[in-house]
C-alpha cells in the first residue's frame, strides 16, 4: 500500500509522524510493508475509479470532508446548488486557472448515505487520458485533497460499517491486488534515473537523521562534535533546494508510456522475437536460429483491439557466460517482475514426448520464469506453445487433451509463428486478457503514481523546514522535522526504521558508553 499523505501537507505544518520499524524491502519498492496506519486515516481522497483505454466515460470519485469544496471549486456548485444524489451537467474547471477542462456530470452524495459513509462526489468526464490527467491534477491542487491509496475507498466503507461480511472478506484480496498493481507501477518508475534520484535523496536524508540522532543520544559522552550538525545543516539545505527544483521542473522526469505492460518471456530460441514481429506485423526484432539473439529489451507500442499496450520482447532466460547476455537476462527478469501480463513462450518441440507429462513440465517451467508472488496468479499470464508446425498432429491432439484435463495452468494457446496457425485464437485470448486488465484503473496509468510521488515530495520539503526552524532552540523538534521528511520520502522508496538509523550511527561514530 502506498502510505497516505496526511491531509495537512497543503497547510504546511500538519504532519503526522509515522516511523515504521519495518525494514524497507527491496529497493525501489514503493510500499507493501504493513501500514495499517492508513486503515482509517482522515483527509479527502480521490481516484479514477473507472478503467482506461477505450472507454467513453471516466468516473473520478472523491470522498471526505472536502468533497463539497471540490464540487464548488471545480463545478461551480455553491451550497444552494448542491442537490443530493442528482446528476448535474456542469463545466468542470481548473480551480486555479479557471480553464474549462471538460463538460460532464457531477454528483453529490452527502454522508452518511454514501458508499464510504463520508461526504462524497463523483465526476463523470470524457474518457481521454488528457482530460483524466487534467481533472486529477486539478483535484490534487485543492487543499486537503490527496490521491487515494490502494483500497482506501473500500477501507473507509469498511470502517463506516457500510460493508457486509462477504464484502469484508474480499477486502483483503482487493487491497492485495491494488497494492500489487501499484508496486509494479512503482517498479517501472523507479528503475530509471528518477529512481536513482529518489534513492540518493533517501540515503542522504537517512544520514542526516542518523547524525542528528547521534548528536542527541550520544554527544554528551562521546566524541561527537558540533561540526556534525553543521554538516547536517548544509545537507538539509541542499536536499531542500534539489527537491524544490525537481518539483518545479515541469518535465516531471521520464514520460512513461501509458498502456498495459505485456512482456514476452521464455527460454532461448522459443520464438519470442518471432511472436513480437508477428504481433506488430513488422520485423521489429531480429530473428535468427541462433540462441541468444535478443539481448536487450525491444519495446513496441501496440493497439490491441482498441486497448493500449506496450509489448516488450526480452532475452531468452538461460545462464550464460557472456556478460552482455547476462545483463540482458537480468533486464528480462526485471521486466517480467514489472509486467501486467506475461506471455510465456515455449517451444513445442522441447516438451516431453509423453504428452501426459506436459502439464507438470509446463508448471515447473512457469515457476522458473514468473516471480514468486505471481505464480498463483494465472490470470496475469498467457502460455504460448510455439512452433506447432514442428510436431505431429497426433501428438498435438494428445497434448490438447492433457492440457484440458489439468488445472492450475494459465490459458494456453498453440500457435506457429511460421505458418500463422492458431494466431486468431491467440489474438482473441490476448485481447480478452488485456481488456480485463484495462478495466482495472490501476494498471498502466503512470500519472497517478507520479501525482502521489509529487505529493510525498512536497510533504518532505515542508518537513525539512521544521529542521531549520528549531535547529538552534530545540534539537528534538528539529530532529522531528527530519524524521517526518524521511517518512514522507520513505513512502516512495521504502520505509526506514529506527534500527537502520542506529546502524548508520554505529558505523559512523564510535559510541563507547
Amino acid at each position, binding site marked *: *500500500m502506498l502510505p497516505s499523505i496526511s491531509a*495537512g501537507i497543503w497547510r504546511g*505544518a500538519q*504532519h*503526522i*509522524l*509515522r*516511523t*515504521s*520499524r*519495518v*525494514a524497507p524491502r527491496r529497493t525501489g519498492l514503493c510500499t*507493501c*510493508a*504493513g*501500514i*495499517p*496506519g492508513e*486503515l*482509517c486515516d*482522515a483527509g479527502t481522497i480521490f481516484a479514477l475509479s473507472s478503467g482506461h483505454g477505450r472507454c467513453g466515460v471516466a468516473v473520478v470519485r472523491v470522498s471526505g470532508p472536502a468533497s463539497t469544496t471540490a464540487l464548488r471549486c471545480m463545478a461551480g456548485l455553491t451550497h444552494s446548488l448542491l442537490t443530493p444524489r442528482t446528476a448535474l451537467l456542469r463545466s468542470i474547471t481548473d480551480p486555479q486557472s479557471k480553464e474549462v477542462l471538460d463538460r460532464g456530470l457531477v454528483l453529490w452524495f452527502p454522508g452518511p448515505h454514501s458508499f464510504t459513509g463520508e461526504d462524497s462526489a463523483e465526476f463523470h468526464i470524457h474518457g481521454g487520458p488528457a482530460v483524466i490527467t487534467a481533472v486529477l491534477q486539478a483535484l490534487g491542487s485543492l487543499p486537503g485533497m490527496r490521491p487515494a491509496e*490502494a*483500497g482506501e475507498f473500500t477501507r473507509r466503507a469498511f470502517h463506516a460499517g457500510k460493508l457486509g*461480511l462477504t464484502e*469484508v*472478506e474480499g*477486502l*483483503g*484480496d482487493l*487491497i*492485495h491486488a491494488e*497494492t500489487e498493481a501499484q508496486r509494479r507501477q512503482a517498479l517501472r518508475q523507479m528503475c530509471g534515473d528518477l529512481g536513482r534520484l529518489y534513492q540518493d535523496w533517501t540515503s542522504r536524508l537517512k544520514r542526516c537523521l542518523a547524525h542528528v*540522532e547521534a*548528536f*542527541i*543520544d*550520544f*554527544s*554528551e*559522552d*562521546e*566524541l561527537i562534535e558540533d561540526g556534525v550538525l553543521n554538516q547536517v545543516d548544509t545537507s538539509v539545505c541542499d536536499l531542500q533546494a534539489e527537491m524544490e527544483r525537481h518539483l518545479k521542473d515541469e518535465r516531471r522526469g521520464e514520460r512513461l508510456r501509458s498502456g498495459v505492460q505485456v512482456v514476452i518471456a521464455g527460454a532461448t530460441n522459443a520464438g519470442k522475437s518471432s511472436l513480437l514481429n508477428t504481433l506488430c506485423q513488422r520485423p521489429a526484432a531480429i530473428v535468427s536460429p541462433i540462441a541468444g539473439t535478443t539481448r536487450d529489451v525491444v519495446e513496441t507500442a501496440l493497439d490491441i483491439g482498441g486497448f493500449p499496450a506496450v509489448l516488450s520482447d526480452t532475452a531468452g532466460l538461460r545462464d550464460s557466460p557472456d556478460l552482455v547476455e547476462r545483463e540482458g537476462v537480468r533486464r528480462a527478469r526485471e521486466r517480467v517482475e514489472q509486467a501486467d501480463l506475461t506471455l510465456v513462450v515455449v517451444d513445442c518441440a522441447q516438451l516431453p514426448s509423453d504428452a501426459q507429462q506436459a502439464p507438470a513440465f509446463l508448471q515447473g517451467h512457469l515457476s522458473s520464469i514468473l516471480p514468486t*508472488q505471481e505464480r498463483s496468479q494465472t490470470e496475469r499470464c498467457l502460455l504460448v506453445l510455439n512452433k506447432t508446425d514442428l510436431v505431429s498432429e497426433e501428438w498435438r491432439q494428445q497434448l490438447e487433451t492433457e492440457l484440458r484435463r489439468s488445472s492450475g495452468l494459465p490459458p494456453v494457446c498453440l500457435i506457429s509463428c511460421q505458418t500463422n496457425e492458431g494466431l486468431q485464437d491467440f489474438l482473441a485470448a490476448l485481447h480478452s486478457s488485456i481488456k480485463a486488465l484495462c478495466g482495472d484503473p490501476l494498471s498502466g496509468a503512470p500519472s497517478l503514481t507520479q501525482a502521489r510521488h509529487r505529493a510525498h515530495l512536497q510533504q518532505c520539503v515542508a518537513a525539512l523546514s521544521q529542521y531549520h526552524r*528549531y535547529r538552534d*532552540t*530545540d*534539537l*528534538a*523538534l528539529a*530532529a*522531528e522535522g527530519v524524521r517526518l521528511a524521511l517518512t514522507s520520502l520513505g513512502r516512495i522508496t521504502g520505509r526506514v526504521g*529506527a534500527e537502520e*538509523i*542506529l546502524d548508520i*550511527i*554505529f558505523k559512523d561514530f*564510535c*559510541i*563507547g*558508553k
Partner: protein
Amino acid sequence: MLAKRVPPLQSFLLRFSRTASHLARHKYDVIVVGGGHAGTEAAAAAARVGAETLLVTQKIHTIGALSCNPSLGGVGKGHLVKEVDALDGLCGRAGDWAGIHFSILNRRKGPAVWGPRAQLDRELYRQFIQSELLSTPRLTVLEGSVEELLLTEPDPEEPGHHRVTGIRLANGSQPVSASSVVLTTGTFLSGSLFMGQTTSPGGRIGDAPSSAGLSHTLRERLGLRVGRLRTGTPPRIVKDSVDFSLASLHAPDKQPTPFSFLNTHTRCKPEEQLPCYLTHTTPGVEKVVRESLHLNCHIQQDTKGPRYCPSIESRVLRFPGRRHQVWLEPEGLTSDLLYPQGLSMTMPPDVQLCLIREIPPLHRAEIHTPGYGVQYDFVCPTQLSPALQVKSTQGLFLAGQINGTTGYEEAAAQGLWAGVNAGRWALSMPPVALSRTESYIGVLIDDLVSRGVTEPYRMFTSRAEFRTSLRPDNADLRLTLKGFEEVGCVSSLRYQEAVRVRDSLQDALAALQSLVLPTSSWKKILGDVGISETKNSILNGMDLLQYNNVSFEMLASAFPERFSPHLEFSQRLEIEAIYRPHCDLQRKEMERIQREESLSLPPDMDYLSLPVSLSQEVREILDRVRPSTLGAATRLQGMTPAAVVQLLSYVHQTGKKERRSHRNQLDQKGREEDGCTRNVVLPQ
C-alpha cells in the same frame, strides 16, 4: 521523604538472613529469583499490587549492588528512571539517595531529550534498596540458589503448555510454591567469566555460579529458544595512584535535580558533589590491544556484544587510529576506587595494567580489581507476551538481562512491569500492558517482544516514535495516574501528589490560554522579546511562552494575580508550551496505534490453518512470532496490508462470537457461585 529513609543497617541485616529452614511459609503468590535491578523492582512491584512475595537471591548482601558502572540515568535511560519512579518503583528514589554527582545531559537540546543522570555511591545505593525492600509490606527475602522450576499441567482456561507452581532450592529443602515466578537472573544463566585466557563459570566475579538446573529447565523442559550474549566491565583503579592534573575536570550541575517526582532535593548537598574526570586513549593503548589479542579469549569469540558499549579492544579494532574518551568516575563518597568508563577489557591482568598506564593520568595507576568479560544465555524475548510472561508457560515471567537487554535502567523498567503482572496473575487479575505511545517502558517491551534482539538492547531516544510527547518532565502525568487507577502499583500518597500536579497544570494552562492580547500590548508589557508582527496579531499566553526569551516568571510578574499561584510549575509550563502543538499533531497517530494495540490476537491462534486468505509466508511469520495484538502484528517485517486487513476482519468476527460465549459463561459461573462459599485467601 528522604529524611525518613535512614536505613537501620544492623537490624535489617538480621531480618534478612533467614534461611530456608526458617521460612515462615511455603506458599507465596509471587517468587522473584534474583536481587539485581530487575529483581528488586519486580519484588517491590509485586508486593505493591498486593501479592505476598518472596525474593530469592544467592547473597542477601549483594541485593541492590551496582555490578558495573556507578551511575544511573542518561539520555533515554534517564527517561526510563523517571518512568519507573512514576510507577512508584525504587531506582529513582535510590538514585536521589545515593547520587554524588548530578547532571542533566543534553541541557541545550530540548527538554524532550534531557537526560537526567547521576554518579552513585555504591554503598548508599545498596543500603537504600535493601532498606526499602525491608520496609515493603508483604515482601520476604530468602538467601538461596534456585535449582529448578516446579511445573504442572496448564490451566485449560488460559493459553500455554505448562504452568509454573513454584521453585525448588539447591540445598534440597522443601519446595516453595507460588502462583507466579519472575526470573531475573541477569548474567548468571549459564554465565562464564573471561579474563585473558582463563574462563570460569559464573555471572559476576566474587559470586558463585548459579546452578545449571534452571538453565536446563528453561531449555529442555520448556523448550525455550535461548541465545548467547557478552558484556564486560573495566578494571577498578586505585584513586590515589591517579594523576588528576593530566585529566580535565567535569563538574556536576550546580543545583542537583532529583530523579524522583516525590523529591524536591537530593541527599547529597550541592557543594558536597564529587567531580568526574575526562581523559583519552593514546596510540600506545591500541598497540597493547593488538599485541595481546592472542591472549584474549573473550574477544576472539564471536558471541554478540553491544555496539554501543564495546570493550576497549573492539573500539580500537573497529575505529583504529582515533582517540577514545575515558571517563574517570568516583565510586562513592568514601571509596578509594575509580571507575574508568570506556575501558571495559578482558585481557590478562598484567596486560591490563600495561594498557591503562598508556593513558596519561593513569601512567602509574594501580589496578584494584581487573576487568573481565561475561558471556551468558538469554531467552529470545519474542517468546514473551507484553506482560513479560513466557507465552508457553502460565505464571512464568522474565525480566532484565535474561531478555537480552543491557543496563540498570532497562532491567529496572522490565522488572517493575514483570513484577506488576506476576502479582496480578497470582491475584487473578488480567494482565496490563504499556503502549509505546505512552512510555519508553512500552517502547522497550514492545521492541523486545515483537522484534527480539540480536545484540544487548539498550534504550535510545531515537527508538521512540513519539519522542516529543514522552518526556522526562511529564512521566508522572503519563504513568502515575494510570499506575494507580488501572494497574494498582502506585501508593495513594504518590497518586494524590500527581493529581494535584495535574490539576494545577491544567488550571495554569487554562489561565495562559485565556489571556489573549494583541501583539502590540504584549510588546508593551514584556518589552522586546522578539515577537514578530505577523498577520496573526492576537496571541495568548501559551503562544508567548513558546518564545525563547519569554519565561513564565516574566508573565507572572506582569500578571501576578493570574499566574503567581502557578510559579511552582514554571519550568513544566514552559516545556508544555513548546511541545503542545506538536503533541496535538501526534495524538491522532497515537490513538490509531492504541486502537490497534487494543485488538488482541489470541495467543493460541492456529495461523497455519486460519480460514482466511493469507499467504504461506505471512502465516509462517505470524506462527513464529505470535504477536499479541494487531498493532504488534502490523510492525512485523514481511506483513502485508492485505494480511493486516484479513486479521482485522477475523478478529472482529471472532471477537464478537467470543464475547458472546464469554458472557454466557459468566452468567453460568455466577449462578454456580451463589450456592457455595468461595475458598479464596485474600492477601493481607
